[in-house]
């Protein structure tokens, strides 16, 4: 996925510990990770220290960085900066074909074009050097 660097970051900033950093480091390299359990095959997101299905140690797994909108809202009132200056905006649950869902913003799309089932692709925004978070936009045509 595309990585946007050098953008001023005013949003809440993740403070991952060593075990949690790989997700954000991978995003900063353009790779979107989730977790897969080597013991039972269960996939999960958010990342954690245990497989929620069988209790084994999960491993990182790559995803293609594409998904569809499972559900969404257009936030029109939020008193907290920086969001109060960005209204209205789209927050959605994105369903990935790998079998996990991620919360995120869908950007660069007309509000009335967002719908359940909309195909989206991930891009990453660095919030500090070497660490990034995924965002989503409508899938562009082409390969």
């Amino acid at each position: 996925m595309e990585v946007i660097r050098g953008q001023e970051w005013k949003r809440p900033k993740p403070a991952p510990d060593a075990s949690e950093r790989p997700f954000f480091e991978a995003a900063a390299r353009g790779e979107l990770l989730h977790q897969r359990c080597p013991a039972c095959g269960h996939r999960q997101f958010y990342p954690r220290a245990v497989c929620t299905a069988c209790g084994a140690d999960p491993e990182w797994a790559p995803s293609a960085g594409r998904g569809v909108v499972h559900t969404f809202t257009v936030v029109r009132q939020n008193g907290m900066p920086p969001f109060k200056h960005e209204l209205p905006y789209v927050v959605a649950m994105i369903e990935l074909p790998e079998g996990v869902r991620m919360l995120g913003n869908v950007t660069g799309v007309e509000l009335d074009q967002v719908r359940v089932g909309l195909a989206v692709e991930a891009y990453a925004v660095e919030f500090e050097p070497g660490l990034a978070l995924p965002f989503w936009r409508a899938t562009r045509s082409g390969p």
Partner: protein
Amino acid sequence: MPSRDPVIVGIGLSDYPVAPHLSTPQHHAQAMQRALADSGVAKRDLDGFCCVGMGGGPGEAMVMAEYLGIDHRYVDSTMTGGSSFEFHVQHAAAALRQGLCETVLVTYGSNFLSARGRTLGTGGFGGPGGRVHGPDMYQAAYGLSLVGAYAMIARRHMHEYGTKPEQLAEIAVGVREFAGLNPKAMYRDPITVSDVLASRMIADPLHLLDCCVVSDGGGAFIMTTAERARDLRQPAVRVLGAAGGQTHWNISQMPDFTRSAAAKTAPETFAQAGLTPADVDVLQFYDSFTITVLTLLEDCGFCAKGEGGPFVAEGHLRRGGRLPLNTDGGGLSSCHSGMRGIFLVIEAVRQLRGQAGEAQVPRAEVALCAGSGGFLSGIGTVLLGKS
């Protein structure tokens, strides 16, 4: 009735919906005083205590037991959000049956509106520009509000089942009608479906009038055994069943956006009581948002999954309908000070005693309370019955 069967014998509300003269501990204290006076229980006889408050943390019961002076043998500060008090009924009922204690006080208090204004629904998760940890690392940066989280639940229900905004609005209209009968309710003027749809959009598809109020307020109730209740002032209300469960905590982890843990806890609660949804006379459901009620209605078995919209549009939840909902004016119009679950129990008791005045449901013998905490995350269902 076997002597150790759990019953509710006292209820009390602190001042609401706007009470700038009360701190959070003072809400607990005033509600306790009023529940004691209502029941005729002497304070020294309280030997069990369940308590949570907004922002109280896991030590809330310890803090408040000291403040109120409760010498407890059984204590519980289970915190599941707004449904905490339905879990407390389950736990206190088990403790009473087991003989761990004889008389349990449950309290809640919050000065949310006076202390923090109307920020509950439309602030973000995590502080502005602050550092976030754990699951918030994958959520907070996207600016989802609490209303927005429920809006995603409503959107999915609309997508899967064709549920319409005007059907959700009907829930708010019916609850407002009951608020008109409660002199203390925050908003009492009648509203129509058109009013709800014309109110400003907070997070699509939820309008302002799909959302609960933000208020101050606290409550208390007292549970004891059927044997002890014989000597007390009020008709005892029986705890017929109580169950709790959770499907997730964070909204991003909700496995099915159209289904809550009530789909499991309600059948368990009805089985304990030997009753079915057809036996219920009055509903006290968590109405943080109209979609909260709709989801709980389906999950509790009053209609099939997906049929909640047409069901509510038929007017069953209205005053005079066969399942009157939130007869005190609910969180949608009367009082929501952050965690509303205690008010569900208190209003159900008022109905089953026949003390609900103009809002009294005729021949109310069985009430179902369905509490929701978090984002339809932690659900507690409680069936109460007339003695």
